[in-house]
Structures are given as C-alpha cells and as structure tokens.
C-alpha cells in the first residue's frame, strides 16, 4: 500500500509520513541544540574568564549575558528536549511499535510540526528585534519580565515585537503544537494498535510516551493562561502581575511551576521508555516489573501535580504549606526510585551484551541517579532555604536534564539508527563519543555542586564584585567546569561526523533485527518504507520474551511479538 509516487515537496517538506515528520522535529531540535550549546559556551567562558575576550564572540556585557542564559534555558527545554524526546522519538516509534502504517491524523501531525517550526522561527527572531532578546530568565518571572509598573498604556506594536513578548508567543505556539501532537499520540495508541496488541502487550515506550503527553496536557493549561496574562501585561498594560494594581507576582510563579515541575516528567518519561526498551534487549532478560512501572508512573503523574511550590520555598509562601509541598516532593522520589531500581533489577542476572546503546543506558542510570539523589537536598524545605537559587540547583537540574535529554536521545539514536537508516554506525567513534560525553559531563557539572554549596548564586554575569566568591578554588572550579563544557560540546562533533558519514556510507545492515529485539518495529524493513510494513503484523505475546528457548529445533533467546509458535 501507499506506494504512489510523491514529489520532493510532499515527500520531504510537507510530508505526512510519521518518520519524515520525526526527522524534521529531530533536525530542528538539533539545530536549536547547536544554538543553545554555543550560547552555553559563551557564557561559561565568561564565567571562567570574566575579563577575557571570548573567541568567536568578543566581549560580553551583563545584559547580553542574561539574555544568553535565558535563551539557553528556554531553548534547551522547549526547543531541544521537547521536540527531540517527545515529538521525534514518539513520531518515529509509536506507529512502528504498534504495528501500523502511520499516526491516526497524519495531516494534524504535519500541522503540528509546522506550528512548531513557526515557534522556532519566532523564538530565533526574538533574539534580533530592537531592544535585544529577552533577558529575564527562562522562568519568565514577572515583574521583571512584565515591564509594566503602573504603565497602563504601552506602545502595543513596540511591546509586541520585543524579545519578551515574542518568547511568550513562541511558547504559546510550541505548546499548541505539542498539544496537537499529544492528542495524535493518544488517539493513535488507543485506536491503531495491531491485531492482538492489547494494552498489556504494548512496549513500555508507548506507555511512557502517552504518560508524557497526558502529563503535558493536564499541566500546561495554567501556564497558557498565565502566559497570556503576562503577554497582556506587556502589550496591553494590564496589571495582572503588578503589585501596585492589586495584581500578584507570585501568582505567575504558581501557574508556571504547576506546569514547570510536571514538565520535567514530560521529558523524563520518553527517556525512561527508551531505556525500558534498550535494557531488556541487551540484558536478554524480560523487563522487570512491567505492571509496577506503569502503576508507579501513574502515581508519579498524580503526585507531580501537587509538588510545584517546592520551587517557591523562599518566595514567602505559607511555611505550613511549604511542609505539605516538601512531603509531596519527597514522596514523588519513591515511584521514580522504584522505576530506576526495576531497570537495575532487569540488568541483574541477565546475559548482558555491552553494545553501544547499552553503554548509554548504563551511563544514563548512573548519571541520573546523582541527579535524582541531589533532589533530596532541594526537596528538603529547610536545606532548600540555603540551596535555592545557588549553583547547586544548576548542577542538580543539569544532572537530571542532561542525561534525560542527551543520554536518552543518544541511546535511542544508536539503538534505532540501523532500523531507520538501514545502515550501521561506526562503533569505535560511537564509543569515543560515549566516553567523551560521559566523562566531560561529570567534570563539567560536579564542580558546580561545590560552588553552589559554597554559596555561589546562579544567574550572575560575573562574581568579581564579591570577594568571598573569588577565592582561588572558586576560580579553578569555574575553569574546570568551563573547559569540560567546551570539551563536552566538541565531543558532539564526533557524533555529528559519525551520523553523517554512516548515513551515506555506513555498512548496510544484514538483518532487519540486528539487536534481536522483540518489538514490532524490528519486523519492518530497514529503513521502513512509507506505510512501514509489507504485511501488517499480528501480535501473540508481550514484547519482553527473552531467555533461551527452542524454536523449530533451533536454540534462540528471543521470540518477536508477532512470531506465531507452532502449538
């Protein structure tokens, strides 16, 4: 089916094929990652050498520093992690894993990508408008972001085409795009599973993708309302967040973090899903606690809606309420600990093939563990009084979001590359890339924990004004972090080279199922054509049937989901 010829435009640009749309999300996400990574290099360089000229950039004034930090945060979360983890991985994998030809609404899928593309264009434009890009922190806290002290009559057009307003508009477009994509994911999952693919036989990744978009859908409403009000404060001169007109700046923080905290799980779930596929395949062992993982995720989603105020322990909220949020915050660590331990239990007792995707999975577990455990310090409301807004927080969320975004993406990349490219990557360069990323990341983020514990506040253009923050070891640690960050960025060029060369010149895969996995995407041709399958598969079992078995007289240690055994 679906073999009709397509012009270049309908095949690659305005395509409705889920794989092409996935690739489009991926490319835009990677370009934005390059921009955000370059910004990180510039301001990290400035932090280590405050007076030096920055190669490839020049000098950096505090306003531009704030703008770079703000843009780095916003881009990495909303234009790198969201499109790559949720949209790209979801688009590539959900239809193929479910054994179907495409998403439920291919046109909506295309539309959601183009709305996303527009949002990316708007956010990049916001950097070049008169007055410069937005510099008020990616959390958009008013009144700093609202520019509206008793200003009931701003110049509408000028205010609209200012950095801050464009960032808010871009966010709104991005959210609309992700909502469309999310609805598509859910309808596809409910409606388009292959014959025999009951919910309890779905690969865990499909579950996690749906958890991700459900979490997004249920948490994004408040921040959409809040961002609209913020936009009105900027362009129409309303006073929703102006304390002198009865408004309340803290209100925005509530609306923002009601979304902002679940957002972390929106990003974490796809990565957990990727790991849930990779780990059993390479440990040659069934996933431990499939049903438990699903249940724990649902508990975590519910809890994630009642933890938001832990970002505001020092923002004058009622101390008794703070204890409530602190309890919620530490409770939510328990289901996630269960999931991580389940993955470790999957590895335990297996027959482990340490192929490259498995290295990334193990690297993710080890790194994310530190990120999760340092959350204990911040979840404790008392210690958070001290640690809040210091570099400790910066190190903590880089230790969570970096493994989520990049270890998650690269694990998925190396695992599914043979399938979607039909060719193999260079294993040596891949290992080099892994060790470079793993080591330089630790060297980059670990020193920042110590700087934070010593009281270094975050988001400061330079620390030269503060004598106690300019001790020798502070300066050295900043240098170590900066040099490691630069090496970390440079390491990614190994991957880029490997990616491009392997895409054109890599060895063709000899089997459609090189990892001997069980899920349905491995039963499709490599790369899957438009429509994915030649014969639509029928499913007979769950996706994690690993372990030595006799099939038709030959010994094997896996049985694909769609293989019918002789009774």
């Amino acid at each position: 089916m679906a073999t009709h010829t397509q012009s270049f435009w309908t095949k690659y640009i305005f395509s409705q094929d889920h794989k092409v749309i996935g690739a489009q999300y991926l490319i835009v996400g990677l370009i934005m990652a390059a921009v955000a990574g370059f910004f990180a290099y510039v301001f990290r360089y400035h932090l280590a050498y405050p007076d030096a000229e920055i190669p490839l950039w020049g000098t950096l004034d505090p306003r531009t520093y704030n703008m770079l930090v703000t843009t780095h945060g916003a881009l990495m979360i909303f234009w790198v992690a969201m499109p790559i983890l949720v949209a790209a991985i979801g688009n590539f994998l959900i239809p193929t894993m479910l054994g179907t030809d495409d998403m439920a609404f291919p046109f909506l899928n295309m539309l959601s990508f183009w709305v996303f593309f527009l949002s990316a264009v708007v956010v990049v434009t916001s950097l070049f408008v008169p007055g410069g890009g937005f510099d008020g922190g990616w959390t958009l806290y008013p009144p700093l972001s609202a520019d509206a002290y008793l200003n009931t009559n701003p110049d509408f057009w000028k205010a609209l085409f200012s950095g801050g307003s464009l960032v808010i508009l871009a966010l709104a477009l991005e959210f609309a795009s992700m909502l469309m994509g999310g609805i598509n994911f859910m309808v596809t999952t409910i409606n388009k599973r292959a014959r025999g693919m009951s919910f309890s036989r779905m690969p865990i990744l499909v579950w996690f993708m749906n958890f991700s978009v459900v979490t997004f859908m249920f948490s994004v409403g408040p921040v959409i309302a809040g961002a609209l009000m913020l936009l009105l404060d900027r362009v129409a001169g309303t006073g929703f967040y102006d304390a002198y007109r009865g408004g309340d700046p803290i209100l925005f923080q509530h609306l923002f973090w009601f979304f902002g905290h679940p957002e972390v799980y929106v990003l974490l779930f796809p990565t957990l899903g990727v790991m849930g596929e990779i780990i059993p395949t390479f440990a040659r062992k069934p996933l431990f606690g499939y049903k438990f993982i699903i249940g724990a995720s649902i508990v975590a989603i519910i809890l994630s809606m009642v933890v938001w105020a832990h970002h505001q322990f020092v923002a004058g909220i009622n101390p008794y309420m703070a204890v409530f949020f602190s309890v919620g915050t530490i409770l939510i660590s328990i289901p996630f600990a269960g999931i991580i331990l389940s993955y470790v239990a999957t590895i335990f007792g297996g027959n482990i093939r340490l192929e490259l995707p498995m290295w990334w999975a193990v690297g993710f577990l080890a790194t994310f563990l530190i990120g999760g455990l340092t959350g204990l310090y911040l979840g404790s409301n008392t210690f958070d009084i001290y640690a809040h807004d210091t570099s400790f927080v910066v190190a903590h969320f880089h230790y969570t979001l970096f493994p989520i975004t990049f270890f998650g993406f690269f694990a998925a990349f190396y695992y599914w590359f043979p399938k979607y490219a039909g060719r193999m990557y260079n294993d040596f360069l891949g290992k080099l890339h892994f060790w470079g990323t793993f080591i330089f990341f630790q060297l980059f983020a670990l020193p920042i924990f110590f700087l934070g514990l010593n009281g270094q506040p975050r988001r400061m253009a330079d620390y030269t004004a503060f004598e106690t923050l300019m001790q020798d070891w502070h300066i050295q640690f900043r240098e170590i972090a900066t040099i490691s960050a630069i090496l970390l960025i440079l390491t990614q060029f190994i991957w880029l080279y490997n990616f491009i060369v392997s895409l054109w010149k890599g060895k063709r895969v000899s089997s459609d199922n090189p990892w001997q996995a069980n899920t349905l995407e491995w039963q499709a041709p490599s790369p899957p054509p438009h429509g994915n399958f030649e014969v639509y598969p029928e499913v007979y079992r769950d996706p994690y049937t690993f372990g030595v078995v006799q099939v038709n007289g030959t010994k094997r240690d896996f049985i694909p989901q769609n293989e019918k055994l002789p009774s």
Partner: protein
Amino acid sequence: MQSTTVSLRRVPQGRLALWLLIAGELIIFGSAIVVYLLLRLRYPEWGAEAAKTHLSLGAFNTLVLLVSSYFAAKAHEASLKKLKGKVLRYLSLTVLCGLIFLGVKSYEYTEKISHGYTFTSPKLVEAGQGAAALFWSFYYFLTGLHALHVLVGLIAIGFIMYYVKNNKHFHRVELVALYWHMVDLIWIFLFPLLYIMQ
C-alpha cells in the same frame, strides 16, 4: 485529507481527539477561573465592580447560547440521518445565535469602555483603585478569551456547512456540536462569576 487506512479499533477517532481537545481547553479556562476566584476572595471590593456589569444583557446572552446549543444538538441529530437540509438549517440557526451573542457582547464592551472601564481602566488606577481596575482586566480577559472561542466555533461551523452542502463529512457535525457545547459550558461558568457574584 483522508485519515489512514489501518484502524483496527472501532473508537471514532475524531470524537476521541475532540474530547481530548476539550479536556485541554477546560484546563486552560479552569485555571484562569481559579486564579480569578482566588483574587476575588482577596478583594471583596470586586463585588461592587461586578455590580456594574450589565446583568440583563449577560442573562440574555446566556439564553442565546443555550438556545444555540439546542440547535447544534438538533443539527447533530439530523446529521445522523444525513438530512442535508435540516442540518444546514439548524447550523445556520446556531451561527445566527453565535452572531447575536457576539453583537450583544460588543455592545456591552463599547458601553463599558465609554464609561471608562477599559482593559486597563487608567481612571480607576489613578483614583488609587488598582484592584478594581484588575477586575476589569479579568472581565475582558475571560470574556475576550471566550469570545475568541465563539468566533473560532463559528468559523468551524462555516467549514462544516460547506462540507455538508457538498454531501461530505456528515460525521463532523457531531464534532463541531461538541465543541459548541463546550463553548456554551464555559460561558455558564463565566456568567455567574463575572455578572452575578456581587
């Protein structure tokens, strides 16, 4: 554009997607309303401002929307039997009601604005009644956002009428009717909160 060919479950895709969309919309409006209510509790003086809204026009508009919802439901009923003429008639009546709603709303807006109760109400701010001005900001924000949804609904109904006229996509009448009921439902929440709660 045709949706894809392989669909093995018999859940109507459009309806499912629309329910999800409605859930998303209700959360957006819900959170805006919660914010309004929290501030309403903080500022008792908002009662006096709410008294200045045009209660009878608001009540009339509520009635108009309820009637329009009834027409939308009738259109859906007719669409199940593919009665083209009936569907078109009821959808036109729905559109008419929607337009009346927007007309009355814009009359209310112009009247309020001529009295100085604008989006930012600078007069109130200068008189030191910042909180009262905030009520009007909320009034315009909530009703404006709702009016925007009415407008989107009207455009969507227009498209559906075009399809039905060409004997296509009768099942989409149900979708647009669902959306219209949601718009109606939101107004039913907004009306007492902004007009009655004095």
